[in-house]
């Protein structure tokens, strides 16, 4: 017997474009009100858009529900409404039980405070009582593997240590309903696994989880049911396998490309999709050779084409980049193929950026969708702060000089 713990009906959220900009000055508003007093204080029309349109759904107790959709589709807005951070413009929802939301790693952390102090502070902000934190404190610290540094201010922590502590606090949150946004995308792969393990324990204990993620593999592993949000509405609500497959099909058909691109150029030519030759079209699973194709649709001839490519990691750090000059392209579809002997990258999400210029005119600047996942095993130091961006296979051998026998270490 399961009971409904979340019931949302007709949730909609309207935002005013530009309202979040820092240009929202009282001075301007006063000036406008003085110039046109008959229009009233809030008379001026602002461009509005619906981030969420009439979303209804039910979530049962103990269910792990995945939310997928491309950037800006409204997943995060939905999560923010359910966690009461923002109110819907219309529609209602009812949640039964305590709600914990994990929309960011290290919510409420203060750099000047120590690990211990931040554990209490962040725990309290996420909704734990002081007693509860005190009771779980040792467990949190050992989960984060930070026993030695717990009384050091977190500003002296490496980013890996910081993330581990933040996760450890969050992982010990035990509300009846847990809302998680994308936060599992950071941190090293081993620690991620540890957190995922804990989350499935949480779900097994009968708690309800809503998880937003771009990592479809993760969604498949963790969720029974998935809701696909597209342009603010529910596009599909069914079993994880069914929805993720439909989503992947839509993505590789290049469905999302047109609205994801910048609106500069794109008239003469545009990149429509990318894929990795082989079984998994968007993830790297081995240390062997990799061949990647980008498809460009050309509508008008290009005589002095310059083409650039860049690979970024999830922290928007440039991993690799290259350019080619003097391309001549005729109308039609062109396939750009890059061959690498190996892409030994640290496991995680990456993104491609490909561009095309004609002379100095920008024709295309395309952020490849979907992201590229690297899902190889980590061959690096087990501690996150000592593992870098390259996941290079290596071998160590130790031999005494002049001696006979050496020993190899993997």
């Amino acid at each position: 017997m399961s009971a409904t713990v979340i019931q949302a009906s007709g949730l909609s959220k309207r935002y005013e474009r530009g309202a979040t900009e820092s240009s929202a000055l009282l001075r301007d508003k006063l000036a406008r009100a003085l110039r046109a007093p008959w229009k009233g204080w809030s008379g001026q029309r602002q461009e509005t858009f619906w981030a969420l349109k009439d979303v209804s759904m039910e979530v049962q107790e103990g269910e792990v529900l995945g939310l997928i959709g491309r950037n800006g589709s409204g997943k995060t807005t939905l999560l923010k409404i359910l966690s009461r951070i923002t109110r819907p413009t219309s529609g209602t929802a009812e949640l039964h039980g305590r709600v914990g939301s994990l929309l960011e790693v290290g919510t409420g952390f203060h750099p000047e405070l120590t690990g211990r102090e931040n554990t209490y502070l962040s725990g309290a902000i996420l909704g734990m009582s002081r007693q509860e934190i005190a009771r779980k404190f040792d467990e949190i610290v050992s989960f984060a593997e930070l026993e030695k540094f717990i009384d050091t201010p977190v500003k002296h922590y490496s980013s890996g240590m910081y993330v581990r502590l933040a996760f450890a606090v969050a992982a010990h949150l035990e509300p009846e309903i847990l809302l998680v946004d994308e936060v599992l995308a950071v941190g090293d792969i081993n620690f991620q696994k540890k957190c995922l393990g804990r989350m499935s324990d949480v779900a097994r204990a009968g708690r309800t989880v809503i998880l937003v993620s771009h990592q479809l593999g993760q969604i498949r592993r963790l969720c029974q049911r998935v809701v696909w949000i597209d342009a603010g509405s529910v596009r599909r609500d069914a079993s994880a396998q069914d929805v993720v497959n439909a989503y992947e099909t839509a993505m590789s058909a290049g469905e999302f490309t047109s609205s994801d691109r910048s609106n500069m150029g794109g008239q003469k030519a545009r990149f429509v999709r990318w894929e990795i030759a082989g079984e998994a079209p968007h993830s790297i699973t081995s240390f062997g050779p990799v061949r990647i194709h980008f498809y460009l649709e050309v509508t008008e001839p290009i005589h002095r084409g310059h083409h650039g490519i860049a690979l970024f990691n999830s922290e928007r750090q440039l991993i690799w980049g290259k350019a080619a000059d003097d391309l001549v392209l005729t109308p039609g579809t062109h396939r750009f193929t890059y061959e690498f002997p190996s892409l030994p990258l640290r496991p995680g999400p990456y993104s491609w950026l490909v561009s095309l210029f004609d002379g100095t005119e920008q024709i295309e600047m395309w952020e490849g969708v979907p992201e590229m996942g690297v899902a190889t095993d980590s061959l690096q130091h087990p501690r996150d702060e000592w593992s870098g961006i390259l996941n290079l296979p290596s071998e160590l051998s130790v031999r005494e000089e002049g001696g006979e026998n050496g020993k190899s270490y993997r």
Partner: protein
Amino acid sequence: MSSVTSHSAVASAPRKRLSDQPTIRIEPMRGGVDLRLGELWRYRELLYFFVWRDVKVRYKQTAIGVVWVILQPLLSMLVFTLFFGRLAKLPSQGLPYPVFYFAALVPWIYFSTSLVSVTNIMVENQRVITKVYFPRLILPVSAALSGLVDFGIGFVVLVIFTMSYGIRPGPSVLLLPLFLVLAFLTVLGIGLWLSALNALYRDVRYLIPFIVQFWLLASPVAYPSSMVPERYRWLYGLNPMAGVIDGFRWALTGRGQAPGTVLIASTAMVIVTVFAGLIFFNRMEGSIADRV
């Protein structure tokens, strides 16, 4: 729209039945006024943590921490004594100039510094506000409360200082907490407006130095309120800090302007300000997370 996926939920520990769990209703903003002060009480532990964080960080960041808290009113007192006392020869209600000014500066500095921190608190905590829910009212309340720690330190110095002039507080000292509560509520009442406005319009913080400066002139810090003509006293008292500072000075030293018309007007004004502030903050609360 909905599907039911049932799976075996292995409960590791006996859990509360769902019907025992609190139900949270999420709805659009309505026209009515619901201040949800009970919710503030339920979140009192978080309030404590915010105050604790403010105090801890403040004293960790400044090397001279406590010394600065004492120096600030002391230095201001010296300047006031020199210019308003010795040079301008303003009356001081029979009190030595240093005591007269110091007794006003300790509550005044609490008011002015807290007003600034309350104004900025929503903007400073925008990351938390956009990532997790709690009653937003906790933030301005915590900022107004954490200023009381500095006030406490200044107050101890003030008492020692006053005693060193041979002035022993009389029974009126028992009314001191009343004036402190009044000061706290003034900070909160005004701060609720300013913090919400500052979150919505970033230029509000540039107004603060002017507001504080004018407010200082409109309060009996540098001069006694007895200089204000009797028939305008009630009008003067509409500045709540007039009642606070007059009363504070009187309660501590037993001399000066005993609370009367000014205090009544101030108290009435504080009550109105706090209620209006709560309602305004409550109305703005819904859109703050979308706009900070």
